[in-house]
């Protein structure tokens, strides 16, 4: 089962939930946690283990050979303006390139061969209980999607047999989130009971409905704010899987890079509720 932990709003507790849920579920199952928030992966701050593997990842970009008839087909076909004709030369902007090959394939003189450019790296780490894969974009790279796509491929090639995959997704509702959640069987949207939390949750809900995803909500810092988030979920018929308390002790454990459920029984109870919910999904889906 592939479970994506996502959110509209950033800073609601995706990583906290993803790391704790992975460790908790791994007590009884084979779990792999994958940090797909490649622009700022921080699940690794809470996970200690041994690096088993590290792979650099590349994307393909065109490189001008330095000589051509300057016909301009390359710049005309580029949807992202990554190729420009300037006077007597062709300029390529690798950060804008989406590796579609159009300019390269359609160049009548084959003057734009595709070459690999490093964009990031993937690390596989073995902890006591589960496998952890961290995907990290290089500084200065602008596109998360190609690296997220390659991370999915890495999992298929190396950790295909783990029973549960948990994706720590990027925040927001844009392309990286779509790429991170698109293969998920279930999406957990983490939110907080504040006006900001509700606003961004409703955007994330729209996105998940558009993607035809099965999803539910976890409300973090539950004693904060007001009742608008639970009321919204009830009105929209969205299941609330868990309510994590707003507790100073939790914040302290988090700040020390520790897993929380091992020290706070209420959090463990909430994780049990999530496990039970997912189990029913799994069984319901099979019957």
């Amino acid at each position, binding site marked *: 089962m592939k479970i994506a932990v996502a959110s509209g709003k950033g800073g609601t507790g995706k990583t906290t939930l993803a790391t704790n849920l992975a460790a908790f579920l791994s007590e009884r199952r084979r779990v792999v946690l994958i940090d797909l928030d490649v622009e700022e992966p921080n699940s690794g701050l809470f996970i200690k283990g041994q690096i088993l593997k590290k792979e650099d990842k590349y994307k393909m970009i065109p490189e001008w050979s330095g000589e051509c008839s300057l016909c301009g087909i390359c710049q005309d076909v580029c949807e*992202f*303006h*990554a190729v*420009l*004709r*300037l*006077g007597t*030369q062709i*300029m390529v*902007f690798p*950060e*804008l390139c989406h590796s579609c090959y159009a300019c390269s394939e359609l160049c009548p003189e084959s003057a734009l061969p595709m070459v690999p450019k490093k964009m990031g790296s993937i690390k596989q780490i073995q902890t006591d209980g589960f496998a952890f894969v961290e995907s990290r974009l290089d500084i200065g790279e602008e596109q998360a999607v190609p690296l997220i796509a390659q991370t999915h491929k890495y999992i298929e090639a190396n950790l295909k047999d783990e029973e549960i995959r948990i994706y720590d997704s990027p925040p927001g509702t844009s392309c990286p989130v779509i790429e991170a959640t698109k293969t998920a069987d279930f999406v957990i949207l983490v939110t907080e009971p504040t006006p900001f939390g509700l606003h961004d949750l409703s955007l994330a809900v729209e996105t998940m409905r558009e993607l035809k995803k099965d999803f539910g909500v976890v409300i973090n810092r539950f004693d904060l704010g007001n009742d608008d988030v639970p009321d919204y979920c009830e009105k929209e018929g969205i299941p609330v899987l868990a309510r994590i308390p707003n507790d100073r002790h939790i914040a302290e454990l988090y700040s020390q890079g520790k897993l929380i459920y091992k020290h706070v029984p209420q959090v463990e109870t909430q994780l049990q509720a999530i496990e039970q919910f997912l189990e029913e999904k799994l069984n319901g889906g099979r019957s």
Partner: protein
Amino acid sequence: MKIAFTTKGTTWDAATDPRFGRTEYILVYDTETNELMSYDNRAIANEAHGAGPQTAQKLFEMNPDILITGNGPGGNAAAVLEKSGLKIYIGAGEMTVKDAYEAYKNGNLKEF
């Protein structure tokens, strides 16, 4: 000599646009003919990415000697403009085109 401005309008009294890539207009003043020509760049608002290099390409084709703007071009646009050899002066973001030109003549703008 041709001097280009990033602007929010088409006259000497218009405000300069502090942005380079997403500037609404480009005005080009020809000091020899005393002509003020304008280019409407507002369609750039529809582009999610790559505004800087595109506007730079336009400017490259206009081939002015000087650019007067506000914040200055970003990395991609600067890479394009470097190839054109034009001189860029920044810090005119809060001025009218007229005042920006005066500030340039009096040496009050910073070279990028």
